[in-house]
């Protein structure tokens, strides 16, 4: 955008756009205007010659001088003043069409014209200058606000570098390269172009950046380099804790003109540095959290394996060695009991291994799902069948509130994994239910969702732990309760969520007892 760059005026903000403004940007225009205004004044004076006394006609010329000053500044005003004086003298005053210099009155006239031109021109110019510079400042402020907001929302290093480069490039209209620190050196993180040159920093720019980086001593001090018709400037930035990077500006103008933008660039770099610092801290914090969680899991896994393998194994070893060593002295009934124990403990280990494998597959994302329209009711029956007659607890099933009775309740799911998820919840419910109680399974469906609810009459879950029951290896804090492996519900949630559904726990149900697990899946048309 062209700037209004006259000799004594240095304006930083380009004037507003538009056809009228374009006309006003022609450099010679102000002087033409001086001619024009004086010409108009002359015409007017000529017309009014008969009606107003000659000396008063000078006011019209004075007005022309005034207008020139206000519109175009002191120089145009002086030119107007001289032209006005000449025109007044030659064309208006008697004798007309001749120049006659009467010492006192003409000197006075000329002096007044020039004085007005100088004073008004100066004042008007200063006022206009101030207005323009305030408008420029306001624009800068708006841009800085925008930049600050943009930098505040981004959290990733690459993104931040891009925003910084864009903002500085917009503010200066030039090519900007942002280098971020990597290890001991720096590497190009982002580029924003003013004139569409290559995205990759040329060797020249990269070399300059590296030299500047190695000699950086304080933020704000900048190195400069001129050559081959352009100027490169480097602006290092960082926080008190650490230097973070370098911004290189490539511009076609001379170094001193570049210096005008320094304050803006400095502010943007500061904002950028703060945002980058924040991004780094967030990264570190996330890493720490992830690390802590892995630690917790590893500890829980070791403790679980140690307990949940060893306990049944001890039982098996004890029972089998008793039968081997003392077989003869053990009554057949008691011997059979021991054998039943061995079987039960082995099955317990089997279930535990299955759970561990499921958990590991879920964690590592290697669960292979084969989604297909699956009948929820069918899977509930299949899961329920696995319990056979080994439990004293009844399994009551009710199908409530089907939106369209007679239609099957289909969801998009992997049938094997859905059945496993339901089995896990049932297993849990059976474990925690008192003997002779009922575990109720129901299906609630509307047009969009199918909800499987498995409710037991067990001790219930305290409100604070309703979400935590789904954590891996989580067991109820009350040690008097039967202890499961702590994996069943976690696996259920993992499987269901992998199918796009949700699982939650509701407790207590009645009189402070009971837990209901709700499995929600999206329903599909049959």
């Amino acid at each position, binding site marked *: 955008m062209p700037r209004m760059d006259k000799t004594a005026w240095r304006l930083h903000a380009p004037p507003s756009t538009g056809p009228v403004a374009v006309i006003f940007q022609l450099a010679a225009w102000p002087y033409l205007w001086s001619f024009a205004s004086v010409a108009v004044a002359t015409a007017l004076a000529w017309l009014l010659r008969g009606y107003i006394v000659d000396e008063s006609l000078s006011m019209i010329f004075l007005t022309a001088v005034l207008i020139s000053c206000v519109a175009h500044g002191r120089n145009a005003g002086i030119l107007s003043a001289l032209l006005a004086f000449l025109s007044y003298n030659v064309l208006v005053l008697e004798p007309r069409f001749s120049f006659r210099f009467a010492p006192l009155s003409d000197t006075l006239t000329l002096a007044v014209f020039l004085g007005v031109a100088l004073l008004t021109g100066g004042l008007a110019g200063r006022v206009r200058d101030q207005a323009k510079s305030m408008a420029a400042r306001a624009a800068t402020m708006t841009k800085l606000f925008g930049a600050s907001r943009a930098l505040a929302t981004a959290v990733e290093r690459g993104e931040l570098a891009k925003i910084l480069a864009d903002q500085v490039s917009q503010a200066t209209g030039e090519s900007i390269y942002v280098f971020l620190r990597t290890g001991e050196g720096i590497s190009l993180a982002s580029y924003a172009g003013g004139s569409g040159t290559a995205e990759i920093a040329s060797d020249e720019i990269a070399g300059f950046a590296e030299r500047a980086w190695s000699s950086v001593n304080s933020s704000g001090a900048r190195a400069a380099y001129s050559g081959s018709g352009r100027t490169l400037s480097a602006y290092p930035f960082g926080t008190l804790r650490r230097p973070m990077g370098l911004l290189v500006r490539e511009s076609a103008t001379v170094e001193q003109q570049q210096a005008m933008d320094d304050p803006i660039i400095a502010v943007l770099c500061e904002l950028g540095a703060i945002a980058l610092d924040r991004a780094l801290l967030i990264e570190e914090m996330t890493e720490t959290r992830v690390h802590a969680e892995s630690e917790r899991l590893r500890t829980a896994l070791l403790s679980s394996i140690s307990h949940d393998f060893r306990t049944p194994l001890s039982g098996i070893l004890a029972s089998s060695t008793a039968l081997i060593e003392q077989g003869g002295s053990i009554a057949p009934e008691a011997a059979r009991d021991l054998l039943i124990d061995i079987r039960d403990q082995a099955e317990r280990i089997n279930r535990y291994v*299955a759970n561990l494998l499921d958990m590991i597959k879920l964690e590592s994302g290697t669960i292979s799902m084969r989604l297909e329209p699956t009948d929820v009711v069918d*899977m509930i*029956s299949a899961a329920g069948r696995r319990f056979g007659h080994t439990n004293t607890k009844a399994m009551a099933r009710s*199908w409530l509130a089907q939106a369209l009775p007679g239609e*099957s309740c289909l969801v998009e799911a992997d049938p*094997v994994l859905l*059945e496993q998820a339901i089995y896990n919840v049932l297993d849990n419910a059976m474990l925690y239910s008192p003997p002779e109680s009922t575990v109720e399974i129901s299906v609630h469906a509307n047009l969009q969702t199918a909800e499987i609810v498995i409710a037991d009459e067990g001790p219930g879950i305290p409100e604070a732990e309703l979400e935590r029951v789904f954590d891996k290896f989580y067991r109820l804090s009350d040690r008097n309760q039967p202890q499961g492996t702590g994996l069943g519900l976690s696996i259920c949630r993992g499987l269901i969520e992998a199918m796009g559904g949700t699982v939650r726990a509701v407790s207590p149900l009645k009189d402070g007892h009971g837990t209901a697990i709700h499995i929600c899946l999206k329903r599909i048309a049959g």
Partner: protein
Amino acid sequence: MGAETILVVDDEPQILKALHVSLRAAGYSVTTASTAGEAAETLRAGAFDTMILDLGLPDLDGKELITSVRQWSDIPIIVLSARHLEGEKILALDAGANDYVGKPFGVGELLARLRVALRLRHNRDAGLRGYRSAELTVDLPARRVVAHGKEVRLTPKEFDLLRTLLHHAGQVVTRNQLLRSVWGSSETRDSQVLRVLVGQLRQKIELDPRVPTLLLTEPGIGYRLRAEMEGGT
């Protein structure tokens, strides 16, 4: 009639030992093999009534062994396969295995599957005319079905489905096998036809179609008609 002969193929010596003891005690004559090569040789050399085959053999993929055996023998094959390898089980069943038992297994379950396999083989040789149990009575030549004391009318496809399941009563039948048997081809654009037909059949023969006790779903694999004692002629 001598004791029925079983070939047990597994690379785990403890499993072989346990099964040998158990099957002998159940009255069967047992031969063991620990590799596929050994199994193939042994099969060719002698006559067996059933083969129990572990799918995790070291030298040959179980499915390939089944395919090659099926080219010259229709001996009932029961496969042993680890949990959650449904894909593996389906491939084995579609290649010609008759049933599967998940590992680790309880011997009781294996013996039950074995009995079913032997019975079905006998029925097939003798010609199956029907099925009788407390809940379900079917007269195949007459196409007459009585469920829970009430006669039910089945559509042709429903009857085909029931008949296929009866021919494998007690054994799992894969979806592909059912599609081929009822619709003539396992290539079908609508993967839901089978599910819908099963639902319709359940409506007619089950006491509570939502909690089936006769026509059971094996998730991810297929369906199984629960076996009762008499296969009856």
